[in-house]
């Protein structure tokens, strides 16, 4: 069992949407007492990211990456459309990874 989840957040410029989505993810993880570390990335870096458990992107992109991590589209956290559903799926994924790791 893992005690901490490593998340990469990636958007086009690595700035605007990343900042917003990171804040929202932190909120979700804190509420659920899950230890985490989140690193910001640019979406062009996604294929070469290593050593993370989940990648959350703010826009559609290629899903292949060296870390072999699942890629989730975190746009709902940014727009607010479907945010609850995303949160549920995200937490399920996080728990699954932590229990298997």
């Amino acid at each position: 069992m893992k005690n901490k989840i490593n998340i990469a957040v990636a958007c086009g410029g690595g700035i605007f949407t990343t900042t917003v989505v990171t804040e929202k993810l932190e909120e979700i993880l804190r509420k659920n007492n899950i230890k985490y570390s989140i690193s910001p990335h640019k979406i062009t870096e996604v294929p070469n990211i290593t050593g993370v458990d989940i990648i959350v992107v703010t826009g559609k992109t290629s899903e292949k990456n060296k870390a072999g991590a699942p890629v989730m589209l975190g746009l709902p956290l940014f727009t607010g459309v479907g945010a609850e559903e995303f949160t549920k799926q995200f937490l399920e994924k996080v728990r699954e990874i932590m229990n298997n790791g």
Partner: protein
Amino acid sequence: MEFLIRIGNAINSVMGIFGTAVVVPTVVLIISLIMGVGFKRAFQGAIYMAVGLTMFNTLLGVLFGGIAPYVTGMAENVGIQLPYVDVGWQGASVIVYSNQLGYIYLVLGLGINLLLFALKWTDTFQPTDIWNYYQFVFWAIIVQFVTGSFALGVAAAVFCNLIVLLIADIIAPSLQEYYGYDGVALTSVPQSGAPFAMIVRWILIKLKVKERHFDLRDFTQRFGFWGEPLVIGLVVGLIITILGKLNAVAELSTWSGILTVTLTIAGVMVIYPNVSGLFVKGLIPLSQMMNQKIRSGKLKREQFHIAMDPAIYFGESGNLTAALILIPIVFFISLILPGNKILMLADIPAMPFMTAGLIIVFRGNLLNTILTGTVWFSLCNIFNSDICEAFTQAAVAAGVGDKLPEVANAISQGLGVASWTVGTNPALWLVYKAFSAPGYTKIITIAVAIAVYLLIYFSFRKNRKAWYMAAGASEEFLAEKYGMPVAGASKSTGASGTSVQA
């Protein structure tokens, strides 16, 4: 108007004492508090913004200190005259928001956007994209510096805003269909390519040109590194410095300079996004607040589009591929293009933002996007070159040019600043031309501009479906999401017509 000028002047005198790095974040803090953002979040954002502004100016000094001699050298040695160094959208945002009109329009624009949305003049809710106001206010500031009239500047800003909203309304369904995001809109500068792409597509359809498709998806996997700021900085840095010292390229000492400055340019490119990231943080709480407001139902209506930062359109593999192929093409053309005076640099990694406006119209066709992009972005460089001098004046007025010795020195040698992305907007360039025509001629040119706008506006309102489809939306998508009946089929079976499920 008198009132605005008086407030502006009062702020300006405070600005003279404290500098833009203090005043601009304070203005943003006040707006945020008025709009109901919590103090802690608003204050935090303002501090980040102040830090970002300060560091941005420092970075610009480093860049100009290194690059200036090579830019002049390039003109002397190989006759490539590109005196206006592209300081990126980051540079444009700092310069616009540090000008009186820039921060005043944050308040004015917010009001106008809320009003236009409430009156249903537009379907697009723009306040969520408040951060990107600077991209069209940029042109209003050019008007102000060319005509010397603040009032004309304000009028131009409002008119540019109307055009931005009209284009956003027209391309929204196409954007939503291509990306598969419900209810989004694009009000930032990448939309500027869409009208041109629509004309090209219309011609291709009229000429019955067959569509050719290339599958290049592997390309992004292999060449993604080429879009990285570090690589672009190294490559462009080497080209500029070698061309700039071509006369002394055989001497060993020349190479120490070439390598140092190339590394400086690459370094600035790498750090740049982080600094502008700090700057952006000042406006994020406000943007999020507006997002919440529109979702909570106070302003909501049955059908609308919500303006989003273009970052969400960036990484889609078709878009990224087209952009990565266009980067070297557009850059090398810009070096030899007659009429171009811009040294493309800081905005080169932003190419995937700009291609989004083209690829949606061509429904993902890479060949059309790349060919059209080559012509379009090259043409835009020529229009953009026309206003670099005025933009440099705006930079000086914002305190970027006179307080930094490196930049002041470069400007005294005839160099200046440009922003490749923000200046890539010929429609708004035409607005600038109309608003700054000599003497009373401008009454006619402004009237013509408004007439053309109204003509397109009412044609669109009367015939939405045709315009939506010209922008790349499919009939099936419009039937499903917008409840627009398919031609020839029986009346719509009552698709709900809501594009946002809040």
